[in-house]
C-alpha cells in the first residue's frame, strides 16, 4: 500500500509536464459574400426617375419650403386675472348673487398681427377660482365670443367654503378644441381681444355669511399651448429671410472628374394658398461640390422682388395662386450649375407678407390646408457623360484574426458583374486604420466594362466582367488594424467606337448585378 502512494505523485508530475504542440494544415475555401442587383429604384431615394422613349429621365417635383399658419401666427400663452373685492361689510344670504357679471376684455399681445377670428385646433384654458366666503359658492365663467356650434362657452365651478386667511380653491380645464373665438371685442370693431364674464352665487342651502372689505374673490384663466387651424384678420407685414439648404449626399462622394449633362432646366414654383398677397426674391442660388468649388446660379430675377398673388375662394373652394421661375440655358447657367455636381445647394430668399399693408381691411384668411410652398421641379433626360469621375465612399469594417488559432493567411476577393449601365468603372479598395491612414491599397485586376461593349440580352445591352482583388498575406497580417474600408470607383462613359467619354443615355431597366466572393487560404490550428 505504501508503494502505491509513492507512484501516484510521480504520475501526476508526468501529466503536468506534458504540453501539446498545435497541429497545423492549410485548406482552400470559396465563400460567397454578396449577391445583389442595383438599379435606379435602389440607388435613388425618391421616385424621381421616369421612363421616356426607353430611356430614363429625371423628373423631380419636390417641395423644398412651406410656410403655414403655425409659422405665421403663434398665440402666446396668456393669463387673465379677474378679482372681485367687496366695497363694504355685509351679510350675504343663501342663494345670493353678489358679483355683477360684467364682461371683461383681455388683449392677446401678437405684435402687428391683428386677428379678428380664430378657430382652435387644440389647447384650452386652465381656470382657477379662489374664495374667502364662508359658504359654498358657485362660480360661473363665460367667454362671450367663444362659440361652438353657436353655443357660447360657459363653465361652472363649485367652490367650497373658505376664509380670508385660508382661501378655498378649485381648478379646472376648459378644452377649447373646435371653438371659434371672435376676437373683435364688445364693440365688434377691435382685434386680438378675448372677453370673459364671471358671476358668483352662494349656496341656496348654505348659511348666511358675512363678508368684509378685506375679502376678495380671485379668478385666473391661463390660455396654454393654443394651436389654431384658421385665422382671419391682418397677419402683419412680416419679412422672412431664410436660406434653404439641400444636401445631396450621393454627390458628396464624387471627389474629382468631369460630368457632362444635356441641356436641362429647373423650375422654382411658388404656390400661395394663403389668402393674402406677398412678394419674394431669390437672393442666392449656389452649390458647392466636394472639391469646394462653388457655382452661383445667374438669372434675371435674382435679387428682384416677385409679386405673389393672394389665393382666392373659401375654405372649401380655395384656389392657390402660382408663380414660376424657370432656369434654363437661355436665361441662366443652369447646365454649369448642375455639372458642378454640388452636394450642398443653398437657396437664399426673402419673403414679405402683406407688402402693401392691411389692404384687405383685416379680411386676410388662412385655412387649415393653406400654405405658401416653394416647389423644385426638374425634367431632363438622364444622360450623363463622365470623364474620370471619381466616386469615393467609406464603410466601417472590422475583422479580427488570432494568428495562434485558425485564421486566413491569404486570399482573393472576386467580383463577377453584369453591367447594363453605359458606365465603366475601375475599383480600388483602401484599407484604413482608425486615424484614416491607408494601411494597404488593393487594385482590381481589370475594369468593370460599360454595357456599350456588351451584347443585348433580354432586350437590354449588358456586359459581364470578372475582377479580382488579391489580398496578400502581409495585408491580412494587418487586418486587425483596419477600421474602415474605402471604395474608390473611377467612372467613364466611353463611346464604344472611339473609347472617348461622351454623354450616354441610361436605358430603362438598367441594372448592375454583382456577385462578390472570396477565395481564402485558411491555416487551421488545433
Amino acid at each position, binding site marked *: 500500500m505504501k508503494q502505491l502512494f509513492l507512484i*501516484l505523485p510521480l504520475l501526476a508530475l508526468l501529466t503536468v509536464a506534458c504540453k501539446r*504542440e498545435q*497541429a497545423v494544415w492549410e485548406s482552400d475555401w470559396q*465563400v460567397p459574400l454578396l449577391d445583389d442587383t442595383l438599379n435606379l429604384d435602389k440607388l435613388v431615394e425618391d421616385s424621381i426617375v421616369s421612363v421616356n422613349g426607353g430611356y430614363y429621365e429625371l423628373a423631380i417635383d419636390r417641395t423644398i419650403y412651406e410656410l403655414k399658419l403655425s409659422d405665421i401666427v403663434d398665440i402666446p400663452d396668456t393669463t387673465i386675472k379677474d378679482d372681485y373685492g367687496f366695497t363694504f361689510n355685509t351679510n350675504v344670504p343663501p342663494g345670493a348673487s353678489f358679483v355683477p357679471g360684467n364682461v371683461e376684455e383681455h388683449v392677446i399681445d401678437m405684435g402687428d398681427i391683428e386677428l379678428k377670428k380664430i378657430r382652435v385646433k387644440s389647447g384650452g384654458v386652465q381656470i382657477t377660482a379662489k374664495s374667502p366666503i364662508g359658504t359654498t359658492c358657485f362660480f360661473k365663467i363665460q367667454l362671450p365670443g367663444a362659440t361652438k356650434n353657436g353655443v357660447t362657452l360657459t363653465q361652472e365651478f363649485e367652490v367650497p367654503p373658505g376664509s380670508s386667511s385660508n382661501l378655498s380653491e378649485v381648478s379646472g380645464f376648459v378644452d377649447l378644441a373646435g371653438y371659434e373665438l371672435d376676437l373683435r371685442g364688445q364693440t365688434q370693431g377691435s382685434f386680438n381681444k378675448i372677453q370673459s364674464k364671471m358671476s358668483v352665487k352662494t349656496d341656496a342651502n348654505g348659511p348666511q355669511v358675512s363678508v368684509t372689505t378685506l375679502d376678495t374673490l380671485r379668478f385666473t384663466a391661463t390660455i396654454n399651448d393654443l394651436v389654431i387651424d384658421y385665422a382671419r384678420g391682418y397677419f402683419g407685414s412680416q419679412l422672412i429671410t431664410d436660406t434653404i439648404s439641400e444636401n445631396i449626399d450621393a454627390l458628396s462622394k464624387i471627389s474629382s472628374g468631369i460630368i457632362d449633362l444635356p441641356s436641362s432646366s429647373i423650375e422654382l414654383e411658388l404656390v400661395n394658398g394663403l389668402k393674402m398677397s406677398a412678394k419674394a426674391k431669390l437672393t442666392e442660388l449656389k452649390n458647392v461640390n466636394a472639391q469646394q468649388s462653388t457655382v452661383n446660379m445667374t438669372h434675371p430675377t435674382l435679387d428682384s422682388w416677385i409679386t405673389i398673388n393672394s389665393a382666392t375662394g373659401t375654405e372649401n373652394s380655395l384656389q392657390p395662386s402660382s408663380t414660376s421661375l424657370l432656369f434654363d440655358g437661355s436665361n441662366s447657367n443652369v447646365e454649369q450649375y448642375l455639372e458642378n455636381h454640388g452636394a450642398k445647394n443653398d437657396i437664399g430668399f426673402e419673403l414679405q407678407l402683406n407688402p402693401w399693408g392691411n389692404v384687405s381691411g383685416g379680411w386676410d384668411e388662412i385655412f387649415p390646408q393653406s400654405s405658401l410652398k416653394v416647389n423644385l421641379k426638374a425634367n431632363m433626360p438622364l444622360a450623363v457623360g463622365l470623364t474620370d469621375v471619381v466616386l469615393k465612399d467609406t464603410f466601417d469594417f472590422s475583422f479580427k484574426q488570432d494568428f495562434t488559432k485558425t485564421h486566413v493567411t491569404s486570399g482573393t476577393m472576386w467580383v463577377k458583374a453584369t453591367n447594363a449601365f453605359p458606365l465603366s468603372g475601375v475599383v480600388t479598395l483602401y484599407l484604413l486604420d482608425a486615424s484614416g491612414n491607408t494601411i494597404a491599397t488593393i487594385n482590381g485586376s481589370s475594369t468593370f466594362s460599360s454595357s456599350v461593349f456588351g451584347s443585348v440580352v433580354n432586350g437590354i445591352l449588358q456586359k459581364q466582367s470578372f475582377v479580382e482583388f488579391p489580398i496578400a498575406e502581409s495585408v491580412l497580417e494587418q487586418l486587425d488594424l483596419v477600421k474602415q474600408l474605402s471604395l474608390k470607383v473611377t467612372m467613364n462613359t466611353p463611346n464604344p467606337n472611339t473609347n472617348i467619354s461622351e454623354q450616354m443615355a441610361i436605358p430603362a431597366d438598367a441594372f448592375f448585378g454583382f456577385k462578390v466572393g472570396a477565395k481564402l487560404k485558411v491555416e487551421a490550428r488545433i
Partner: protein
Amino acid sequence: MMKIGKLLVLITCFNSAVGSAQMIYPGYSDSAISQPIIEMDGIFDLQGSAIKREFSNTLLFGGFIDEGMKGRSFEKHSAVNRFGINANAEIRYINGSGGFMKRDSVAWMIKGGYFALGNLIYGQDAFGLLFYGNESYLNTTADFSNTRLDFAQFQKIGFGIVNKKNKSSVTLNVVNVQNYVDGTIRKGELTQNEDGSQINLDIQGNMLATTGANFNKGLGLSLDVDYRILVPWGKSTTTFQVMAQNMGAAYIYNGMQKIAVDSNYSYSGFDFETLTSDSNPFGDDFSIFDSLGIEKRDVKRFVPLPGYLQVAKLVDVTSAKKVQSFFGIRLYPTFSSIPQLFAGAYWKPTELLHVAGSVTYGGFGNFRGGLFLTLNLKQVNWMLGTEDVFGGVSKKGYGESLVTRLIWKINS
C-alpha cells in the same frame, strides 16, 4: 532520445504511465493470490481504417500536415471510414494477504483509472472538406452524411472484491466526467456551383457536448466485472474471461450544449441592404447559428459511459506449455464501432522472457498485427508491446499502439 520522449508523451499525454485493461493482450490465469499486488496497465492506441499514422500522429501531437501527408491518407478513404483513439491507464491494488468481511477467499481491491475514448465514423468528403476546404468540391456535392463522433474523457476511483483463487472480481466505481461529446450528422450535403458563388447546404444533425475547461463536469457510477470460468480445453482446462468494464452512466450537472440543425440553406451572398443593416455579417449582432437555423440550448442529463464487453481466452503463465493460444471478441455497446476480433499465440521461450503475437480485426480499424514482450521476474511481471506493429515501424500504417502492463507481487 526522441523515441524515449515520444514514449513518455504517448503515456503521459493521456494522463498516465499506467495501463488500462482495454487491451487485447491476454490476462493471466496463474496461481491464486496470496500477497498484496499492484497492477498497472496502460494503452495508447490510435487506429483508423484510412488515416495514415503520419497523419494521425501529426494531428494528435502537433506539427504541419503538408499536402503530401493529406493526399496519402485521402486516397485511402472510402465511403465509410473509421478512426478511434483509446488512451487509458488503470492502477489496482489488491490486498491479497488479507481477507474481506471475514472471508479469507476474497480480497478487497481499490483502483483508479483515466480513460479517453473517441470514435469517429465519416465519409471521404468529410475528410476532404475539413482538410482541403470547399474549393475542392466546386461544381459537385460533398456528402458528409452519416458522420458520427463519440468521445468521452473520464476518471474513476473504485472499490471492489477479488476472488483470490480464480481472480474474478467486481468493482464499483465513482466516475468524474471531464469531457463528453456525442454528435451525429444524419444528412449533410454541400452543393456548390462552378465558381463557388452559390452554396446549398442540406443538413440534419445534432450534437451534445460538454463545454468549458473545468475538470469536473459530471459524476456517475460504473461497474467493472471480471468473471473467469474454467472450461475443458482439449485434454486439459483453460480459463475464459467475461469482462464488462465501465458499464454505467454519469449525470452532467455542469450542463451540456445541445446543438440541433435541420435545414436546407441556400446562400449566394448577402444583399446590399443586409450588408448595410445592423445585422451585417461584419457586425457584432450577426449570428451564423441564426442564419443557419441552428438551435442551441443548454441541457443537464445522464449520459452513458463508453463501457465495453469482452470475452477472451486467457493464458496461464505458470503453465508448462511453451505455446498457448489466446483469442476473444470485444464490443463497445455505446459506440458506433464494429466488434473487434482478436487472436494470438503466447510463447514462453524462457521463464524470464515471454513473447506474444496477435492479429486483430475491427474496432476502429482493419487488420492489425501485434507483438508483446514480457519480462517475468519473481515478483514483477512487466509487459511492453504494441497492437499495431506495422503502424509502429512504418508511416504507411493506419495507427499506432503502445501497451504496457506491470504486475508487482509485494512481499508481505
